[in-house]
């Protein structure tokens, strides 16, 4: 466990010292959400309808943008070789890195999302469920993204490919997340969708690190 926390802590430290922590991801998220009214017009009734979906799309783009560095930096400087040989199972190392990734991209979005919801005229009663949906769904985004990042880890320019591989994998999470937000915005009960979102995250928690670690071992060959 000591190794697990050390790795998560190191990734957080690196994120704060070089990438400004989650600030850049949040900035991207905010800018994307702000661009929406420019694209579709400022009518509040229209914006309030598309707000949950737009927030989710902005969230998954923000999450995806930081994915290609998730493993690649460690593969390039040789740290991944040493992690693979360490007593910490590679699957747990992947999980630790996903945790750090979520803390620097997913978690800040939870705080930024209500602010952006105001600008997109989302109905007040939907704020709670929307944040809850993001809290339940964004860990799955980091975990699923790890599979794509693992598959492209050994490539010099894997960025676009990572996106092409990962975005279709995000479809179920996006649909359920937006459904939860929409249900709450139209006064319906969002709990079934929240539960399904939670179920996806719970299933991803053990399975995605397993697959991503297998992909990483390939990249190290």
């Amino acid at each position, binding site marked *: 466990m000591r190794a697990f926390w050390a790795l998560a802590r190191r990734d957080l430290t690196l994120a704060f010292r070089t990438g400004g922590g989650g600030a850049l991801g949040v900035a991207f998220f905010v800018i994307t959400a702000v661009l929406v009214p420019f694209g579709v017009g400022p009518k509040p009734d229209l914006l309030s309808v598309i707000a949950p979906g737009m927030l989710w799309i902005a969230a998954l783009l923000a999450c995806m943008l930081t994915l290609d560095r998730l493993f690649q930096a460690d593969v390039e400087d040789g740290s991944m070789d040493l992690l693979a040989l360490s007593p910490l199972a590679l699957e747990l190392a992947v999980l630790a890195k996903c945790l750090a990734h979520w803390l620097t991209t997913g978690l800040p979005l939870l705080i930024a999302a209500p602010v952006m919801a105001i600008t997109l005229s989302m109905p007040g009663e939907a704020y709670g469920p929307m944040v809850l949906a993001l809290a339940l769904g964004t860990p799955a985004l980091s975990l*699923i993204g790890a*599979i794509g990042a693992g*598959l*492209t880890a*050994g*490539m010099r320019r*894997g960025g676009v*490919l990572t996106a*092409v*591989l990962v*975005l*279709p*994998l995000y*479809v*179920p999470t996006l*649909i*359920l997340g937006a*459904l939860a937000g*929409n249900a709450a915005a139209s006064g319906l009960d969002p709990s079934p969708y929240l539960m*399904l979102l939670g179920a*996806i995250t719970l299933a991803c928690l053990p399975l995605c690190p397993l*697959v991503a670690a*297998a*992909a990483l071992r*390939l*990249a190290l*060959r």
Partner: protein
Amino acid sequence: MWSFANPNKFMRVSGKVLPYTAVLAVLLFAAGLYQAIYVVPPERVQGDSARIIFVHVPAAALSIMIYLAMCISSLVALIWRHPVADLSAKAAAPVGASFTALALVTGALWGYPTWGTWWVWDARLTSELILFFFYIGYIALWDAFDDESKAAPAAAIFCLVGSVFAVLAKYSVELWETLHQPPSLTIGGEENVHDVYHIPLLMMMAAFWLYFVTLWLVRVRMEIRSRRIRAIRLAAARE
């Protein structure tokens, strides 16, 4: 199946099978198309437009079947390092992708006179579209690696992960569709078409399937030959 692990054996057997599947495919296409175009009467509800199922349904059904076959191939390649299995999945992918594209295009063409619009976010069309993205990702992943021995397992992993998420996406799309109230007319009412449609449809399905098998055999043979070319070149570079 294990004897085909030897590419030489695969080449010998596939070379013998190939002419038969090709001829059978041509015959079935001829018979099926004759039935579809001339013999089958207009359908009760959908009229003549129902004739489109003879190309739309086989393409859609095979696009799913081919992905399943790729999954099985990938699993075999990953677990037993079967040296033809990874090439088999690689050879099938472009065929599957083109069937998926066909299913989408014919679906849209069918939708226009039926719904008055080319595209509807109908659960089946949407799932087909997502499947198309998985094919694209699979093919792109193969192409992105310089080293085939690295590309094969990576693509196999993506194929298997993709199958799980394609199923998840299908169910979430269905859930999403029921909440967004789709048009009342669903296309491809295969369930309620008249009995006289069954035999020609089966013939067309078989024809598409044999077309796939023929093309797949040609492509696997091509991939094995390319591997031999590469091996000879490397052997020459070594001397």
